[in-house]
């Protein structure tokens, strides 16, 4: 069982490493943050505009929670792919040569860092929804 799990991870790792990483995928995690941020803001603003100043926020908590979990999950996938790319083998350290491997590794490291920042920012965005009780 343990070995099957290990080989499964190796398979996924290999798949993620074969993926063609580009500038578009590099900006995927912050784009997910942006989508989550806009969704939360617009959804809450429309709710409060239509339901009135004294309306509670329980009605939208579920949607914002689901959006947050989805966004974090997607960022997690991006982070896994980026992490896998940052481990592509072939060149000696310090990995800043003009080679295919080093370019792939660089985009992987930068993508992983961006995924981390985006995850923190998504949690930051969700916090007000968890802490504030009504539309005032």
């Amino acid at each position: 069982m343990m070995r099957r799990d290990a080989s499964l991870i190796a398979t996924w790792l290999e798949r993620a490493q074969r993926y063609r990483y580009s500038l578009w995928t590099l900006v995927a995690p912050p784009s997910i943050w942006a989508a989550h941020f806009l969704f939360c803001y617009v959804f809450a603003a429309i709710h409060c505009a239509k339901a009135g100043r004294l309306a509670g926020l329980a009605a939208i908590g579920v949607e914002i929670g689901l959006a947050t979990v989805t966004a974090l999950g997607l960022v997690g996938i991006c982070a896994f792919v980026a992490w896998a790319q940052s481990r592509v083998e072939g060149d000696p350290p310090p990995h800043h040569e003009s080679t295919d491997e080093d370019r792939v590794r660089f985009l992987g490291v930068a993508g992983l860092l961006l995924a981390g920042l985006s995850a923190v920012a998504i949690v930051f965005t969700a916090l007000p929804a968890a802490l504030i009780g009504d539309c005032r």
Partner: protein
Amino acid sequence: MSPDPEAAVTNPGAPDQDDPAVRRAQEARLRAVWAPPKGVFLRWTDTNNDAIGKWYTLAAVAMMLFAGTLALVMRAQLAIPDNDLVSASTYNQLFTLHGSTMMFLFAVPIFEAVSILILPALLGARDLPFPRLSAFGFWSFAIGGMFVAGSIFFDAAPDGGWFMYPPLATEPSQSGIGADIWMLGLSFVDVSSIAAAVELIVGVLKCRPPGMRLNLMPLYAWYVLVVAVMILFAFPPLIAGDILFELERIADWPFFDAARGGDSLLWQHLFWIFGHPEVYIIFLPSIAIFAMVVPTFSRRHLLGYPWVVLAAIGTGFLSFGLWVHHMFATGMPALSQGFFSAASEAVAIPTAVQIFTLIATVWAGELVRSTPMLFGAGALAIFVIGGLTGVMVAVAPFDWQAHDTYFIVAHLHYVLVGGAVMPLFGGLYYYWPLVTGKKLSDRLGRIAFWLMFVGFNVGFFPMHVSGLMGMPRRVYTYPAGLGIDALNLASTAGAFLFAAGVAVIVIDLCLSPRRPHSPRNPWSAGTLEWLAHPKSQEDWGVRSVPLIESRYPIWDQPAFVRNVDEGRYFLADAEEGKRELVITSVLDAKPLHVHRVATPSVKPMLAAATLGGVFIATTYHGYLIASTLAIAAFVTIVWWLWTGTSVIPEKPAKHAGLGLVLPLHATGPASSGWWAMFITMVADTVAFASLVFGYFYYWTIHAQFPPAAMPGIAGPGWRWPAVACALVGAGWLATLAARQANGRGFRAGACGALALAALATAAGGVAGLAGPWHAGLEPQAHVYAAIVWVLASWVAAHAALGTVMQIYALARGIARHTTGEHDGDLRNVTLYAHFLALQALVAFAVTGVFPALA
């Protein structure tokens, strides 16, 4: 892979770079090709990035000195209580023009100017991909800038504050002609910003030297890329806002008038969606200068290269989630404020990452003391204080106390002077030898720095206190005895001390022509721009386009400078008498083709002058002159395009050096022109999306939107919008068919399809206007009618432009400038048609379908 001395053996036709006579002949040809135009007038038609960059930078610095002088007048007025140096009305003009000039005419243009000046050198390129576009941007800036800044000498300057809030600024009787000058003049300057953004993005992505993969790009180029993309998303909402604002002022369409369904807060949203990213658009390029300066004076590679890239991209994104923190005092729900407060705190993370990587690099290297580093250290100290007060005002309850007080004035000046002005002066001392071949005086530089550093803190730190004591910003005077007299006197003294520092720098610059040349690469830096020769300022840029294997090639690649100088890399010659660049792939900088750039021409200047005239004439309601000039601008631009773009080369490919044979032509996504069209249309679509945002904003604030049908405000129904959408869609399909037919060599079919496409697109635009026309929508009656008219007119104007493009492509085909293989024009028109079809579809969904559902 280094230049192979045996290459000549494998490529028998290659010139012998070991022969000095061969090299001299190549240099003579390059010099002739890149020679600037001469003559009293013609020299101003230059388009080379060296010339445009210098003029642009000088003009932006002149704007800074002008706006700084306005600030000194304000500080003189506020030195003592109950002062009467200037009137309240003049004071309003002073602070409005000070803010507007600093933000729109100095801070953003200086980024574009410096980038146009040094980016090609950083990338080992001879020029940027669209030199005439740079020239057009510069002349637009010069004309628009002088128009706005000069207004104060006619007592006609804008006076509503640099963010021009309605209803004060939309009411002509309250705000006079100044608000129109602001709106139209600065909109015109914004157009030049977007032009520069297009130029710089394509420059960074496609004009890097072979081998300079993304992981080897100088960090300045990363920042340019991020900032230019930010401009694409930040400026269009402001342009959309400007359109609504001017329509309210000129035609009384009530977008911001609450009595007729409008809302002044919409302007605040549109303004700050631009206005907050703007702060980072100003700040990031200055950090970028430091990312070049710090490794040089630390004598080592910058630490944490991917971390800096993370920080640049992360800041770029997060900065778009901060705009509402300028609107905390407007009474929006606490939850909305919470979201923006959270993002405002989160952006501190990538900002701090950048500062820590710089400090770590200094720490890990061997510091060489120098004037640029002195400015860097001072800037960091000032910026960090501004950042800390920023974290304070990002907390909504604190902001309610500090809002519109001098605390905010102190905060924003600490951020902008620490984050932009001081780094730029550091960059001036660093890059002056690159541009002029002469160093500035270290002694005067140090004196200037200390005057500025002390003056700034003496001037602005007390404002924190006077703000917390309740002194509001933008008041022209204050009574004695409030406990703020001494604080204000200190602020005034500090401001003049700071100005004395700036004056010392100006003196230093004026002394520069009398000084001897500095040695080549005076700072012993490792990046490509220092290949420049101090004495022979050649307009060709680099002698040969190098092959890059390191982030700091001058330090790391053996015999690098000699190989470049002896023309042992790419494009060492100009055999065909053309100005040439190497275009490389986005990720890995693999050489793709040779791009021939345009030569000096008067057309960009003419286009800017006529287009600027349209904006200026509209300001004074001279619509006849405006329409005449619009036709002149149109003719000039078509003339420019017809004679200068998509030129079919005389042969398919050429030897580019090192045995490499590159095509002389590319089309579609491989070409730089396609990318320019794509980037422009992204910006255009963001502006359209901002108008759609306006529609839905009105929907959220009204209980019923669209309002109950009454004469004058009954919607256009779904039929006309559907017809418009279908016709534009048909035009889109016909354009696609034309591209296919042309690709298969079926010329007649392509021409026929383009003619059909032009007809359908034009009819689609008219049908879009027919909807609100037949419904009798009166745009002055209610905001619903006005916003529907705006959306329909937007699509109609774009359909008209699309029709022109389709006719242009048809004419190019008939004149045989477009062939089956050389179809760049047709592909770019097709790309435009994609975006037009998308906008027509959205307009149909919003104006035709949504009212039926709402």
